[in-house]
């Protein structure tokens, strides 16, 4: 009894922290905004798959069709920042209860105001154009901040902006329309000024400034395996407290790693070398989603406890597709000190194995967005061919070795509990 009270206060303390963090409106909006991009990045992944297959068959290349297929990458990953602006503005508008379409439009206007244009001459006619540099992965940070800021400013001007007094005869729709036009124009003008300030610096534009001062150093931090291990560890610790870990940390993960994933995806689609080892696609595929299946299999086939066997039975099929909730809440793994250690260290060790394998050149870098529900061994093979399969098998062996003693210990405990219960039941029957 004492123990449960103690756990509760610990949980409460953690809940205060986690709730503050994960319920923070901005963090939550950012997380949802990124998750809206999934279908778009998946188009890029499909194009990459076609390109990879075509490298062997050369069917499309010889028929001169590959250039059309890669449009599916150029118009998705290649200009991802535009879609990010729309998604972020939508989520921000939802969060602060304002018109989503107005938020999307003003945010796009502001984003394009900040994005530098070039002009050049083709056959005597002058062409003005956006280079795709800052519309793609390099513009994501500016896109995110622009959408959040522009939508917020728009809301402020709509709520507290100058209300022009109209005679009572003027229909209210007209004064509302004027207020909206005024808010649009004010926000756009603020961004025109921001752009003017950055354009007069040596960075040339807000994009140039943010990329040099923020995104580039962040990419440096992201390139360290330690950053990724800390994120993975945090995610599993949150699970210990019953909070969906990767969901709660997705705002951080995507801000740090999605631009790197997109850059890799683009390189893969056109067949150049992939610039980054660590990225968000790497994190998903190489923290060993198969570990949930392994855990369920251990419960089902290595345990004697009736309860654990029953949970294994419920959990084995979902586990095969990377779903762990039946075990998280059934055993439960939540608040379970025995299973905390393997739960936290298996994804971290898996990441280290894949990282080392990539650094030594054995495993190819990841540029495909492979959702976590793709089962073993398809996920490993898709991510790294036969080398991917080898790495995945090594990871699984290590996961089994780490989980086994802890599961056995748990089994022993549960068996003793069950025997005690049976004994009590038998005694009460005797009386």
């Amino acid at each position, binding site marked *: 009894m004492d123990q449960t009270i103690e756990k509760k206060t610990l949980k409460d303390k953690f*809940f205060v922290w*986690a*709730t503050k963090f*994960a*319920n923070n409106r901005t963090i939550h909006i950012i997380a*949802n905004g990124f*998750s*809206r991009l999934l279908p778009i990045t998946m188009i890029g992944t499909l194009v990459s798959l076609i390109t990879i297959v075509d490298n062997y068959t050369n069917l499309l290349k010889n028929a001169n069709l590959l250039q059309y297929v890669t449009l599916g990458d150029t118009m998705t990953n290649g200009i991802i920042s535009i879609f990010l602006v729309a998604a972020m503005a939508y*989520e921000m508008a*939802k969060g602060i209860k304002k018109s989503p379409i107005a938020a999307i439009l003003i945010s796009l206007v502001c984003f394009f105001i900040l994005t530098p244009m070039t002009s050049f001459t083709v056959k005597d006619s002058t062409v003005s154009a956006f280079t795709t540099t800052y519309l793609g992965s390099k513009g994501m940070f500016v896109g995110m901040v622009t959408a959040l800021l522009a939508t917020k400013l728009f809301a402020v001007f709509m709520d507290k902006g100058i209300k022009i007094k109209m005679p009572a005869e003027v229909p209210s729709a007209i004064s509302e329309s004027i207020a909206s036009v005024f808010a649009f124009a004010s926000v756009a003008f603020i961004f025109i000024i921001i752009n003017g300030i950055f354009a007069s610096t040596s960075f040339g534009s807000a994009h140039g400034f943010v990329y040099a001062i923020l995104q580039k150093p962040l990419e440096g931090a992201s390139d360290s395996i330690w950053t990724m291990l800390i994120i993975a560890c945090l995610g599993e610790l949150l*699970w210990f407290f*019953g*909070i*969906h870990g*990767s*969901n*709660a940390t997705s705002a951080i993960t995507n801000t740090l790693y999605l631009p790197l994933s997109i850059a890799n995806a683009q390189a893969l689609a056109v067949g150049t070398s992939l610039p980054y080892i660590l990225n968000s696609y790497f994190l998903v595929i190489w923290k060993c989603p198969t570990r949930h299946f392994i855990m369920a299999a251990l419960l089902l086939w290595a345990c004697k406890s009736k309860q654990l066997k*029953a*949970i294994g039975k*419920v959990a084995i099929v*979902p586990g095969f597709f990377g*779903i762990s*909730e*039946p*075990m*998280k*809440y*059934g*055993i*439960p793994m*939540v608040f379970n000190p025995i299973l905390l250690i393997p739960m936290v260290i298996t994804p971290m060790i898996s990441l280290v194995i894949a990282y080392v394998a990539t650094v030594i050149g054995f495993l190819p870098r990841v540029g495909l967005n492979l959702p976590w*529900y793709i089962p073993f061994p398809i996920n490993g093979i898709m991510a790294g061919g036969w080398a991917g399969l080898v790495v995945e098998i090594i990871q699984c062996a290590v996961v089994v070795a780490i989980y086994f003693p802890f599961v056995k210990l748990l089994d022993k405990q549960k068996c003793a509990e069950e025997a005690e219960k049976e004994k009590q039941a038998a005694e009460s029957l005797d009386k």
Partner: protein
Amino acid sequence: MYKITLACAGGFSTSMMASRMKEAAKAQGIDVDINAVAEEDIELYSDSDILLLGPQLGYRQQELQKDFSMPVLVINFQDYGSMNGKNVLNDAISKIKGDK
């Protein structure tokens, strides 16, 4: 008819729960409309009689209750682990009835 919506991070594990609940409803002859959705799409189902959150999303309960007029409940830990659709369905219905 009861309109029940379940939500978790991506709508994956709650979709398992939703199908268990549908089976239970069928067995008991209860007319229900049960959907499992990702957290960011809850809005599309804001006219439900009740919103049930997977325990992994329990930390969002208070915030979501502020946003929606439907009652927001966190699914019981044990029932979620054992995917006990019958218990969750009955809890949800008695909550809906209690509110009316």
